[in-house]
């Protein structure tokens, strides 16, 4: 009797190719999910940037700007604890909404694609392949959405900054701080999307291939 053979693990390159094909085909859905991520991340980046600028008004703004802001009573207003906690709340809610949005979009895509998933499993696809497929799809949307959101957020923060603080805006945030801020936002975006895809990916992998055989649609 020949020894029992087992299937090879599909290389990541192949899984990525299959995932990309799906994303391209479902372009509208991909776009919407990416936008949802971008929106939340734009908000996060904007808030962090503009808070960072305000925090440095005292030590990095020119004397002229400081005098003008003091005259207009804006310095106290910008630093008020009320405003800070309010933005923190809004930030939390924005991130939560986008997280729920991702989980929801991914879960819908599992239900919609039950036949496709079952078929792939009938043809020799492993559970781990299905998990990777979903994680890669969400990771791709996460990276694109996050980068897009960060760019939008930074632009918004600086446009608003120039409006309020004029040419001083460019000096307010130290480059090192800005870099840290961008890394943190990027990480948040990726963690958010991958975490949002974990449960849906697991659900997809656990689907029985028998369901693909069922004649009822």
């Amino acid at each position, binding site marked *: 009797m020949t020894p*029992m*053979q087992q299937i090879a693990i599909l290389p990541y390159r192949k899984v990525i190719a299959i995932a990309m094909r799906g994303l391209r085909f479902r372009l509208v859905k991909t776009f919407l999910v990416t936008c949802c991520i971008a929106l939340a991340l734009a908000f996060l980046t904007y808030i962090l940037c503009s808070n960072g600028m305000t925090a440095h008004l005292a030590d990095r703004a020119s004397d002229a700007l400081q005098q003008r802001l003091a005259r207009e009573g804006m310095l106290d207003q910008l630093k008020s604890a009320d405003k800070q906690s309010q933005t923190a709340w809004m930030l939390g809610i924005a991130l939560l909404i986008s997280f729920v949005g991702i989980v929801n979009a991914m879960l819908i895509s599992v239900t919609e694609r039950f036949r496709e998933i079952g078929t792939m499993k*009938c043809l*020799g696809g492993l559970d781990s392949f299905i998990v990777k497929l979903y994680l890669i799809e969400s990771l791709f949307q996460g990276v694109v959405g996050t980068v897009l959101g960060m760019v939008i957020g930074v632009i918004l923060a600086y446009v608003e900054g120039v409006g309020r603080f004029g040419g001083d805006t460019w000096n307010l945030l130290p480059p090192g701080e800005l870099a840290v801020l961008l890394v943190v936002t990027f990480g948040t975006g990726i963690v958010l999307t991958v975490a949002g895809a974990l449960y849906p990916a697991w659900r997809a992998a656990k689907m029985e*291939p*028998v369901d*693909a055989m069922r*004649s009822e*649609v």
Partner: protein
Amino acid sequence: MSATDNIVSVRGVKRRYKMGDEEVWALAGVDLDIRRGEYLSIMGPSGSGKSTLFNMIGGLDRPTEGQVLMDGQDVRGMDVRQIAYLRCHKVGFIFQTFNLVEVMTAEQNVMLPMTFAGVTDGEASGRARMLLEKVGLGKRYDHRPAQLSGGQQQRVAIARSLANDPDLILADEPTGNLDLKTGEEIIKMLSKFTKEMGKTVISATHDDKMLAASDRVVYLVDGQITQIKTQAELDIKIGGIADRSTGAAH
């Protein structure tokens, strides 16, 4: 008969489904030896357990009791990667609902089992084109399932089922969603290729017009085999079938 003459042996297989307090025996003790190279049809009314039996043979489901031996190896003892190997290399599935992956072209659909098998893209693409040519869709390799008729989709599925050159083709009501003429073409094509390539075919059907290609017909009622007929017996019966007094009761 030695184990190698039978590609599949089903021994005392039972399958129970629990629906709340109710128990359904989808298969109530089935014994069946499937010979290498034969075209076997399974006839039976809806709910008789045809699909359940298929799922057992294809490694999609495991029996509650009994054994399924593929090439003499017990499916129940296999781990997930061995089962996946079985589905990928040893069995070609054809479904009633075609089950092509909608985001992929005909060619990519036929390539998929080869990709899972670790075949390189170039080789897989060449073989996919060849198989599509064979089922008469050589020019349509770039079409997506939505751009193909039901009959064409099922032909892509036939090509896909042959992708990794499996010994066994499992077709669960392959003509169930097709009109009579298209259905007959599909059966003809299936039996022609599989005979040419020496494949074993197990095909389920409701319709006795689809039995012409069969070497043997197994009748399944309420999860049990009631009779097995050979082609010779079938010919006699088909003579008498004109008055519609025989054949499957459904």
